């Protein structure tokens, strides 16, 4: 599968990474406080944080994985976007963001300390920090695998080179340089994927040609429907109830509304309105991303007959790149892929350094030092985080199965966190210790249901179905334990909950800017538009 890259392609790759490092150096001159480093000084406009929000999730694992799912499960893969992302992103912007942003917290765990107590903060901070390092390592390992297959670079070389690039631009410029690179990467990856999709479609005879050939493929008619087969047999073996509640509600709301690596992008926006618009602006490109991920997956399925047998589904995009792109555009596509791996890793590392410094070091270990001290801790945490990521990548190289399991496991760790959030936001009686015990019980329930599935004690059919149910169970256990513990412990007085729960408002000065009242800056209107558009898209392929 080695790609035929030449000097032209390498020149394009080199230009990109020179630009990335230049952004890091330019951003460094603006960093004077820890707020600059961790939250880009809370000064970015909504379109930048919005694109960074969608881009932080558009890592290469996502791109390769969704193309692979497209080839394996067909059109049903769009559920991960239209029901599994859009409603939750809009909910985050309209309902939850005012609480996050106006309480002026720096992180999700810090919000948990304000709403509940230090123990809840520490529990969430440690789970999050460990998960980010492991996921960064998995990202790095996946990058090295792709580099080895496509360009013939030895695995350790790719791991070290990419770690050094990510390390330099985040240590230099903190979150602003991570965000600026995410925006840049977003456009470059599209510049690679769009020609790929167009050429692929031409080759299979347009949309009608593609549909005709998918019908004759192993996937068959079921690969061309999203909801039509979900009451009976379908390629994903998923029932519509599992899709709506498991994916559309628990998994997706858990991921999008509480995952700090995402929420951090919105917290860096310049005012409340921009923070609320961040996930909503991100929702619009998100609706159309399946056109350059799931669609190429289907194209690869009909172009390469042995996909899923002799060749892995994950190779769908790289195979298309080698088959369709000439030198030049090929360089752009490889750059986009490399950049998106690094953006994914940078999002993990910038989330890690913030939570480690703010919620573990400053909140529980070394308190009350001057701001410059924590800025330094943040930079050191970045270096240590990248080193641990490199270590994880080499462990992953030895035990790739363990890494797959861990990744699947973390994918539903957010479900209990979402339960704690939603109960805590709308029920002011919920007590500090209910926050802690609910979260702990829910996390353990997620863990247990996954172990039981893996050891074959309970059967869920497919891995996907297991994650839908695992998340649902974790959510239920969390709510149950939270309610029971609340009934036997003491609640916080209203005065400590102002601005943190629904119905107890706090008088903050209005931070609206001129123009925020215009219709095209209204979170409710734009959010409703995104949901309507997502529903309309289902109408195209039902």
């Amino acid at each position, binding site marked *: 599968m080695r790609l035929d890259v030449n000097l032209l392609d390498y020149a394009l790759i080199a230009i990109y990474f020179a630009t990335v490092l230049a952004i890091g150096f330019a951003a460094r001159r603006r960093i004077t406080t820890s707020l600059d480093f961790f939250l880009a000084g809370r000064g970015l406009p909504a379109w930048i944080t919005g694109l960074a929000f969608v881009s932080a999730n558009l890592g290469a694992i996502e791109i390769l994985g969704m193309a692979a799912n497209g080839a394996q499960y067909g059109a049903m893969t769009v559920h991960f976007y239209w029901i599994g992302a859009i409603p939750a992103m809009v909910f985050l912007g309209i309902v939850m963001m005012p609480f996050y942003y106006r309480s002026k917290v720096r992180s999700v765990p810090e919000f948990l300390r304000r709403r509940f107590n230090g123990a809840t903060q520490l529990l969430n901070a440690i789970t999050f920090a460990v998960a980010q390092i492991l996921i960064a390592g998995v990202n790095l390992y996946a990058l090295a695998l792709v580099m080895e297959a496509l360009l013939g670079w030895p695995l350790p070389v790719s791991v070290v080179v990419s770690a050094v690039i990510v390390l330099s631009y985040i240590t230099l410029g903190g979150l602003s340089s991570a965000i600026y690179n995410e925006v840049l990467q977003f456009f470059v990856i599209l510049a690679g994927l769009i020609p790929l999709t167009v050429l692929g479609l031409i080759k299979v005879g347009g949309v009608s040609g593609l549909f005709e050939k998918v019908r004759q493929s192993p996937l068959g008619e079921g690969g061309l429907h999203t909801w039509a087969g979900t009451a009976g047999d379908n390629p994903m073996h998923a029932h519509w109830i599992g899709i709506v509640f498991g994916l559309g509600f628990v998994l997706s709301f858990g991921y999008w509304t509480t995952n700090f690596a995402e929420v951090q992008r919105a917290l860096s926006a310049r005012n409340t309105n921009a923070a609320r618009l961040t996930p909503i602006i991100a929702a619009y490109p998100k609706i159309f991303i399946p056109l350059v991920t799931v669609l190429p997956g289907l194209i690869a399925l009909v172009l390469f007959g042995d996909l899923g047998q002799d060749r892995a589904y994950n190779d769908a995009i790289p195979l298309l790149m080698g088959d369709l792109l*000439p030198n*030049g555009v090929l360089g*752009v596509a490889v750059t986009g892929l490399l950049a998106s791996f690094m953006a994914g890793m940078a999002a993990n590392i910038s989330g890690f350094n913030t939570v480690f410094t703010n919620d573990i070091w400053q909140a529980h270990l070394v308190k009350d030092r001057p701001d410059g001290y924590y800025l330094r801790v943040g930079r050191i945490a970045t270096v240590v985080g990248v080193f641990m990521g490199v270590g994880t990548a080499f462990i992953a190289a030895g035990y790739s199965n363990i890494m797959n399991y861990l990744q699947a496991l973390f994918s539903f760790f957010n479900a209990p966190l979402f339960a704690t959030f939603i109960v805590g936001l709308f029920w002011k009686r919920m007590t500090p210790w209910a926050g802690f015990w609910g979260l702990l019980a829910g996390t353990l329930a997620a863990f247990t249901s996954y172990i039981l599935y893996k050891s074959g004690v309970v059967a869920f059919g497919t891995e996907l179905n297991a994650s839908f149910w695992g998340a649902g169970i974790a959510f239920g256990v969390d709510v149950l334990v939270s309610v029971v513990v609340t009934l036997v412990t003491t609640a916080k007085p209203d005065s400590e909950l102002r601005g943190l729960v629904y119905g107890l408002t706090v008088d903050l000065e209005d931070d609206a800017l001129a123009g925020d009242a215009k219709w095209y800056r209204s979170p409710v209107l734009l959010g409703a538009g995104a949901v309507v558009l997502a529903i309309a898209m289902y109408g195209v392929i039902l």
Partner: protein
Amino acid sequence: MKDIRLVIGGLFLVYGVILIVAGVFGTPVNLWTGISMAVVGGVFLVWSRIRPI
């Protein structure tokens, strides 16, 4: 920090010109992608000129 629109615009313009040259002497795919990237780059440069931060 410099306006990100200048960075995106500049990079896309450079990529666009390189691909256009590669396309004129080679495959038409490079030409079309190059033209599109140069246009996108131009739009970002014009945008940051019209509405500076």
